[in-house]
């Protein structure tokens, strides 16, 4: 936001902050640093426990591996072998399917939610089915999807299936929640239903769109990994399945850690998107 004078909420003359204000800023900074330090400490404590619990025989290292074993395992998995692609290729496949899954869920979600907003009766008819479809454990369909869609498509299908219903429900609730007076205002200018959708409902639902994106990225990742358990010979889900079958927990833990890193990256990307969009509000 650019600096503007005489605008409510803008900061006053910051040339000579008072001692009390400097104290306030210091306290604020200290609070932020403390939170970050606590977060880092928590992560470190977790890694230390994971490293030393097996070493001192508190848990069987066969079952947990060690954090220190992950990096060498990761480096070892980088290279493709005769019957196994490299780990980055696995990761790329998982990311690709996840992106397709949540993009598809967003696209279908917006279209279906808009249709339900447009035809209220359609919503009244479909509402119970959508709620049940959302509550259904979609994972139960993994074997069926494999038969219906084949090895690759079933993964995309699972990513979509697991995230699309909640997206529809969330977006529709968001569309319905747009201030009725804003719609009335547009109508006083003679706005058509299509104009109301395009100029009021959709732009007014941007926060809901972002909230839905947050939810369905995570869900799409779940769908992809579960789909890969069943059907793939590529992807981190497959690698986890493979590692556990040959009882190499190093591989399993490395793949899981990589999944955690990917989740964190996706979260950061959405947070950045949210900041950019919300700067306009």
């Amino acid at each position, binding site marked *: *936001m650019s600096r*503007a004078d005489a*605008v*409510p*909420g*803008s900061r006053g003359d910051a040339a000579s902050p008072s001692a009390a204000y400097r104290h306030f800023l210091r306290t604020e900074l200290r609070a932020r640093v403390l939170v970050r330090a606590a977060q880092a400490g928590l992560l470190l404590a977790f890694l230390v426990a994971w490293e030393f619990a097996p070493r001192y025989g508190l848990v069987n290292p066969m079952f947990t591996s060690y954090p220190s074993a992950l990096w060498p395992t990761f480096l070892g998995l980088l290279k493709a072998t005769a019957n196994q692609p490299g780990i980055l290729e696995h990761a790329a496949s998982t990311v690709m399917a996840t992106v397709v899954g949540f993009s598809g869920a967003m696209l279908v979600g917006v279209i279906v939610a808009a249709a339900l907003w447009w035809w209220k009766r359609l919503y009244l008819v479909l509402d119970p089915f959508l709620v049940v479809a959302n509550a259904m454990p979609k994972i139960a369909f993994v074997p069926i999807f494999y038969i219906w869609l084949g090895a690759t498509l079933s993964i995309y299908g699972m990513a979509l299936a697991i995230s699309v219903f909640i997206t529809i429900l969330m977006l529709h609730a968001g569309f319905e929640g747009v*201030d009725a*007076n*804003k719609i*009335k*205002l*547009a*109508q*006083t*200018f*003679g*706005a058509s239903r299509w*104009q109301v959708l395009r*100029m*009021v409902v959709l*732009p*007014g639902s*941007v926060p809901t769109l972002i909230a839905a994106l947050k939810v369905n990225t995570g869900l799409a990742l779940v769908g992809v990994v579960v789909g890969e358990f069943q059907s793939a010979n590529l992807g981190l889900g497959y690698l986890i399945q493979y590692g556990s079958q040959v009882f190499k927990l190093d591989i399993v833990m490395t793949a899981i850690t990589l999944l955690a890193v990917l989740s964190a990256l996706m979260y950061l990307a959405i947070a950045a998107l949210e900041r950019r969009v919300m700067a*306009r*509000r």
Partner: protein
Amino acid sequence: MSPALAAAAPGTVKVELRDVGLRYFGREGETEALAGISLGVDAGEFVSIIGQSGCGKSTLLSLVAGIMAPTRGEVLVDGRPVRGPDPRVGYMLQQDYLFEWRTILENTLLGAQIQGLDPQMARDRAVMLLSRYGLAKFMDHLPRQLSGGMRQRVALARTLCTDPDVVLLDEPFSALDSQTRIAIADEIADILRREKKTAILVTHDIAEAIGMADRVIVLSRRPGRVKSTHAIQFASSGASRPSPMQARNAVEFNGYFNRLWQELEVHVEG
């Protein structure tokens, strides 16, 4: 249908309601909101409609704006029945309802965009209006960066950007604090008079109704009917009409206020 032409014919009836009635239907039953309302507003006239909450004041404006249809009677603008929202009629709602994702200029252009007006001409007009209302510096700001009074001026610019002949005001100051409220009422009354708009203000604030209007119409409790009509004249102020703020100090003011107060008081007891 040029606005200049329509505005240049004072004394002609601009808005007319003929025996208008409205019933709402709900599962709990039907509600008669308005019954047998007949009234006319002349071109360039400023009319205030007062009544207690729930008397159907806002509904009446919705009928003139064409976003609701009467279940009885007819609403006419320029002698033609209202069949839907009409570009000749502008509407200011109880709050500014600025779109938080649009800049001030983009908000001002909303009506023009909906009505498909020439973008360059609409933009020029929006910039002109915003500058005139002291908002030139804020055109690229977002609504949340503006104070309540400024936001209400943007709402006025948005209404006038499509150049309607008739402006409907539905308690447009009710969300403002009392000082801003009086100042903005002054400004808006002045602007509407200078631009020779026909205006209908709905309010429950008696002082505001007297201060702004040429005529005050009192509605009865539900179902709303025209109870009485009061011409407001300030002979003491000479030829020009005083501003709403000046009107409060005019010798006639208290007389009008007490009369209208009694008209409304009757309904509290009844």
